């Protein structure tokens, strides 16, 4: 009996043992707990899941043994699935995470509520480790994302053989995954990059760095495209580069758009340049006949004329002058816009420039009750810049203010402040109590050919180019003109500039025309030069010949460059005046030939273009100097003076002075009567400076001599009073050298020149 029972128990035990082994072979862990959630039994897989032997687990609470997280949040014991199953008496399934050491394990839990056998209920939990499956799912999702990406993505092994491409890659290149797989990406080579390009790329990625850049590649169908590509090396677990991932973006459209834009820009710039060149050429073409008109008008005025005839000729001259100033403005604008405007960098006295500019314009107020004054604040007034251009801007702004102000005041205010380094900040404002500008017109007044109101042109005259030119000049000097204005309550124009700080007395370079003026004072004078005049235009030839004859020179005209070369080879001349633009052989070529033939006579170019770089070209061709057309007698006289032809000196007769004045006024673009007023002011103002200078020379005060001489020179230069500025410059030079001995003689010359001026204007006062 007992043996039968024993045998039966043994059989049951054997079965139970097999079941235990069978359950242990299931990958999923199986646990049953008692009604309190304590582990009663678990399969061998639970050991593997927990990483500890299950003997230590038995009898422990599953909520403590298996702390779970759901969606990244730790579950409290009462929310643990085993607690919920036992609480609710119901089955439950779900996904949870388990933190095991450094790993996050994903678990799928299926729990059953059972009430069998043992006292009280139990829970049977089946736990599946789905970490890997979830990882695979994640990878599947990422893979789907890569596949769906808009950018072309390609993966290669470490040798560059394709292991995977996405759909965008296939659409971009025309190669499917099957076609690209196992191939090198060199299937995309377009031949547009050299070997060094690819070598550089490989060097970069093999060193472990990311390569990115543009590349022109070739599609399967042979068409080219441009892509922006980023190639990232991916290191394997052992640190060696195992793969490369390239992400490509098709930028062909963008490149095409950029190219279109570039071409459009080039075309627009070309058109604009052509326009500017056309304007410059037109101006040139107009200036040439204008030269004759003005020249002959001036010559005619020297003849015996009836009052009516004189009036007519004067009108011709004045009209021509106005036309010329208009052309000058257009030429200025086109020079600026064609980038042909050259700026000088010289030291000048800003205070003098301003004072004299205002003095120049004051006569323009006439009888209107308008007060024009300067408000200058600052300690330092010697600046480095382009005095002619700055003066042009100030003249324009003040002139505008005068033009549009019937009563009240116009204030030109300048503030200078020293800044760190060698710079000065200059704040300039011109305010008036004039008609003002309506708000909606403020925007357009700086545009070329624009006045605030079309009707203003008729009432106030002018080309409307002044502000446009001024704005561009200030812009080129690094500033901007702004305006505040309301209709009826005046306007204020402002601009700020940063200028170099100049040292008084260190003149640096000087404007060319004043260099010429300085030369006059020291040049030995010789009346009656033998001049070869090469000029193809008969009218201009006549004018120049007449002018030169009247100055007492002998003139041999040549109609072409070739003729001039032949004549210069056969005869000795003191000077050649060479028109630059002549048919057949131009002045440049003629000059080169003359220089090659060893002819050293001074050659002065005559040109109407005077664009940036011209002077350098002339000098390179072997010319010594140039004069701008239309040629005025004054300029001609001064240039000739440099080459020994005598110029205006202090000994000039009153009639000579008058001629000079006409020329200077022309050059400054102002009325002769205004110039005369300024001149008279100058004589009055500088008398005292002259006395002080003499006293300083006698007293041996070198610093005072230098300062005063510089002051006189500067003012005289602005007024083109070469006979005054010449000796003053020599005195300044002597003082700078510390030796005042030559100053006595120069002082005598200066005094004579001044006396001559006074004498000349005595009758006019």
């Amino acid at each position: 009996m007992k043996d039968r029972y024993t045998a039966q128990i043994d059989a049951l035990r054997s079965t139970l043992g097999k079941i235990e082994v069978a359950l242990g072979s299931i990958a999923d862990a199986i646990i049953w707990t008692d009604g309190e959630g304590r582990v009663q039994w678990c399969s061998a897989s639970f050991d593997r899941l927990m990483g500890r032997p299950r003997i230590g687990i038995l009898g422990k609470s599953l909520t403590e043994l298996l702390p779970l997280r759901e969606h990244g949040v730790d579950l409290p014991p009462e929310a643990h699935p085993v607690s919920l199953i036992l609480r609710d008496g119901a089955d439950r399934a779900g996904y949870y995470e388990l933190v095991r050491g450094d790993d996050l394990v994903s678990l799928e839990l299926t729990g059953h509520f059972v009430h069998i056998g043992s006292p009280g209920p139990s829970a049977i939990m089946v736990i599946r480790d789905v970490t890997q499956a979830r990882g695979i799912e994640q990878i599947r999702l990422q893979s789907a994302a890569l596949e769906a990406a808009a950018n072309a993505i390609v993966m290669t092994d470490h040798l560059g053989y394709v292991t995977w491409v996405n759909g965008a890659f296939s659409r971009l290149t025309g190669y499917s995954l099957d076609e690209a797989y196992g191939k090198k990406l060199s299937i995309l080579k377009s031949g547009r990059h050299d070997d060094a390009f690819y070598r550089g790329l490989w060097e970069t990625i093999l060193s472990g760095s990311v390569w990115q850049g543009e590349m022109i590649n070739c599609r399967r169908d042979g068409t080219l495209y441009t892509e922006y590509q980023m190639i990232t090396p991916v290191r394997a677990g052992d640190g060696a580069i195992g793969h490369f991932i390239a992400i490509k973006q098709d930028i062909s459209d963008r490149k095409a758009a950029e190219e279109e834009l570039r071409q459009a820009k080039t075309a627009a710039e070309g058109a604009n340049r052509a326009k500017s060149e056309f304007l410059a050429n037109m101006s040139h073409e107009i200036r040439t006949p204008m030269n004759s008109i003005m020249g002959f008008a001036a010559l005619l005025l020297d003849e015996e004329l009836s009052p009516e005839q004189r009036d007519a000729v004067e009108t011709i001259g004045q009209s021509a002058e106005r036309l010329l100033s208009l052309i000058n403005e257009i030429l200025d604008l086109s020079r600026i816009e064609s980038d042909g405007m050259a700026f000088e960098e010289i030291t000048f006295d800003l205070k003098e420039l301003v004072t004299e500019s205002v003095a120049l314009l004051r006569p323009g107020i006439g009888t209107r009750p308008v007060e024009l004054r300067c408000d200058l604040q600052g300690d330092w007034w010697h600046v480095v810049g382009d005095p002619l251009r700055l003066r042009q801007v100030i003249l324009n702004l003040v002139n505008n203010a005068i033009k549009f102000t019937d009563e009240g005041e116009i204030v030109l205010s300048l503030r200078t402040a020293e800044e760190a380094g060698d710079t000065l900040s200059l704040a300039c404002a011109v305010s008036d109590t004039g008609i003002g500008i309506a708000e909606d017109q403020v925007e357009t007044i700086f545009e070329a050919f624009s006045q605030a109101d079309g009707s203003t042109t008729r009432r106030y005259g002018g080309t409307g180019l002044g502000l446009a030119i001024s704005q561009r000049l200030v812009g080129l000097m690094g500033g901007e003109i702004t305006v505040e204005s309301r209709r009826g309550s005046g306007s204020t124009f402002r601009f700020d500039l940063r200028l170099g700080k100049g040292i008084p007395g260190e003149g640096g370079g000087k404007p060319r025309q004043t260099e010429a003026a300085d030369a006059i004072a020291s040049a030995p004078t010789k009346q009656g030069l033998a001049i070869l005049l090469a000029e193809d235009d008969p009218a201009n030839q006549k004018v120049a010949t007449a002018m030169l004859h009247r100055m007492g020179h002998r003139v041999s005209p040549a109609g072409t460059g070739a003729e001039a070369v032949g004549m210069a080879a056969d005869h000795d001349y003191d000077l050649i005046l060479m028109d630059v633009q002549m048919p057949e052989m131009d002045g440049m070529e003629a000059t080169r030939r003359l220089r090659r033939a060893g002819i050293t006579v001074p050659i002065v170019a005559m040109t109407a273009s005077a664009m940036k770089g011209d002077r350098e070209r002339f000098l390179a061709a072997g010319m010594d100097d140039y004069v701008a057309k239309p040629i005025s007698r004054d300029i001609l006289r001064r240039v000739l003076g440099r080459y020994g032809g005598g110029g205006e000196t202090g000994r000039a007769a009153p009639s000579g002075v008058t001629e000079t004045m006409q020329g200077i006024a022309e050059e400054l673009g102002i009325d002769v009567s205004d110039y005369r007023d300024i001149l008279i002011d100058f004589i009055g103002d500088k008398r005292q400076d002259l006395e002080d200078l003499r006293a300083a020379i006698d007293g041996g005060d070198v610093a005072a001599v230098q300062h005063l001489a510089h002051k006189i020179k500067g003012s005289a230069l602005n007024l083109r009073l070469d006979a005054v500025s010449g000796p003053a410059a020599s005195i300044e030079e002597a003082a700078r050298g510390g030796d005042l001995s030559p100053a006595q003689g120069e002082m005598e010359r200066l005094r004579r020149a001044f006396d001559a001026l006074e004498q000349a204007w005595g009758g006019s006062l």
Partner: protein
Amino acid sequence: MPTIDQLMAASDVPVVIADQRGVITFVNELFLHTFHWEREDLIGQALLVLIPETLRDAHQMGFSRFYVSGEGTILNQPLALEIVTGDGATVSAEHFIIAEERAGEWVVGASVRPL
């Protein structure tokens, strides 16, 4: 690692020995004294009388597996397990369980030191 004979001879440590069916065949004096059992209440009884309720299922399953396969997962290592005393209490004790094959049958023995 002691042998069954050494266990049976030991007097300084409580010892219990069972056959391959889990029937208790030997307990020493120190075991009876330590865990308040009478010899006649244990000899011929199943080991289950010494195993608390919560461990019984696991014991049955594990012992059956050992019976069928000879593979034990708890042998030859010190284990902290609870044991039921003769007066019905449950105490913790360090079990060191060994198994020896004798004449074709397994003999299982354990030293059980109270903790």
